[in-house]
């Protein structure tokens, strides 16, 4: 009986230490992208004038692969986010002022300034994942029988 008590005491102490250790863990780069993305405001984070093209593109490239993996990559008029990113990088490399994007079928999908294309790369990449996280609670609000009022 005494043994049992000791074991449970040890367990309680162990769990609480573990819990505290978790609490004190500083937020670092290993923070889940599903958490970090929710701290961003698209208008600020993807603002090219404020942050510069490179920083904005870096953000786009951080979240776009996760969007693709989740099956939620944005696409406008046949041009997916990843194509905006690719074409913007290409334009910077070529020293070109304009970005030519292509549709998934290989047709011309529009010409943009580097700043605009970088903004769209970032805004689409970030918003897609934010939307996915938000949907975890908002889907119910659209459904008769759960949250949808009429």
């Amino acid at each position, binding site marked *: 009986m005494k043994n049992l008590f000791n074991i449970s005491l040890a367990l309680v102490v162990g769990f609480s230490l573990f819990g505290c250790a978790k609490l004190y863990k500083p937020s670092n780069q290993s923070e889940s992208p599903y958490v970090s993305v929710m701290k961003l405001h698209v208008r600020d984070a993807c603002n090219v004038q404020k942050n510069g093209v490179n920083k904005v593109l870096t953000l786009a490239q951080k979240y776009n692969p996760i969007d*693709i993996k989740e*099956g*939620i*990559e*944005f*696409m*406008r008029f046949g041009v*997916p986010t990843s194509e905006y990113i690719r074409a913007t990088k290409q334009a910077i490399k070529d020293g070109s002022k304009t970005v030519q994007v292509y549709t*998934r079928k290989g047709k011309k999908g529009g010409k943009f300034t580097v700043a605009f294309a970088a903004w769209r790369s970032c805004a*689409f990449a970030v*918003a*897609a994942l934010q*939307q*996915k996280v*938000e*949907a975890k609670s*908002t*889907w*119910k609000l*659209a*459904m*008769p*029988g*759960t949250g*949808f009022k*009429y």
Partner: protein
Amino acid sequence: MLSKVITGSVLTLLSCSLLSAAPYNAQAKKDRAAMIKYMEAKFKNPKTAAKFFPYTPKNELEHNFIWGFPFQEFGLGDAGYVKSVRAQFDNFMMLPPFYNAVDNGEALYHKKFANGNSFATCFPNPAITNLYPKFDDKTNRVVTLSEAVNNCLIKNSESPWKMTGMKMAYLESYLASKTTAAGKKFDIKIQSAAAAKAYRRGKIEFYSQRGYLDLSCATCHVLGAGKRTKADYHSPLLGMIAGFPVYRLKWGHVGTLEKRLVGCNKNQGEVPHKPNSKWMGDLEYFMAYMSNGIKVNAPSVRK
């Protein structure tokens, strides 16, 4: 005394196992009842229309809506509740443009594979489209009608077909016409925990906002059922897949459900999911369950 205790515990055990077997579709049943209640309330009565259609011109509600139509007519898509669309629909059905699609499908159904079998070997009874999608516990995956067709091809050492292609649409037109002739209603089953999970995934995808336009399927086909995008009235989720494959005037030919879903998914502003993806299977499973009790009425005609 002892025998009483034994019978008692056997009974308890039995009822426990029955109880745990029954509820796999319990949530889905509830969801379906709530959705039907909403749709019936919405299209019931012009007097309550203002509540559901605050922005639709009164004139349109009074003159172009069919109110309180029979439950089975939810299977007609937007022709169910829009007078002008119904008139067009009736016109087309006098000389259905999908006639030769059904004939082509019948020929494909009987055509021998290289090994001497045919689709008739896999589907001896062609009137089966009301039972798809099915959940397959062995592969832990939803099997859509198109996937079942491809599984049959693969089993007989033939190459699978494109799910959005013409051959698939023809064969399914034939199977659906046989199911329609037999008067069969959608009868989708959820019989395991894994199946219930697939249903739930499909449901969440249907109700989740997606794409750069931030729209869910429900924005247009539940809340938005009865409203329009430009001149196109949105069909209600209830009965929405009963007409597939459909002959679309825009396409000029019949097309599968997958072809349509890829289109709607793309319109939301995201890279559309693949026709044979798990996502597509889950979504179709949910949509088909919502249509349980509605008669298959296919192929059909749509704008």
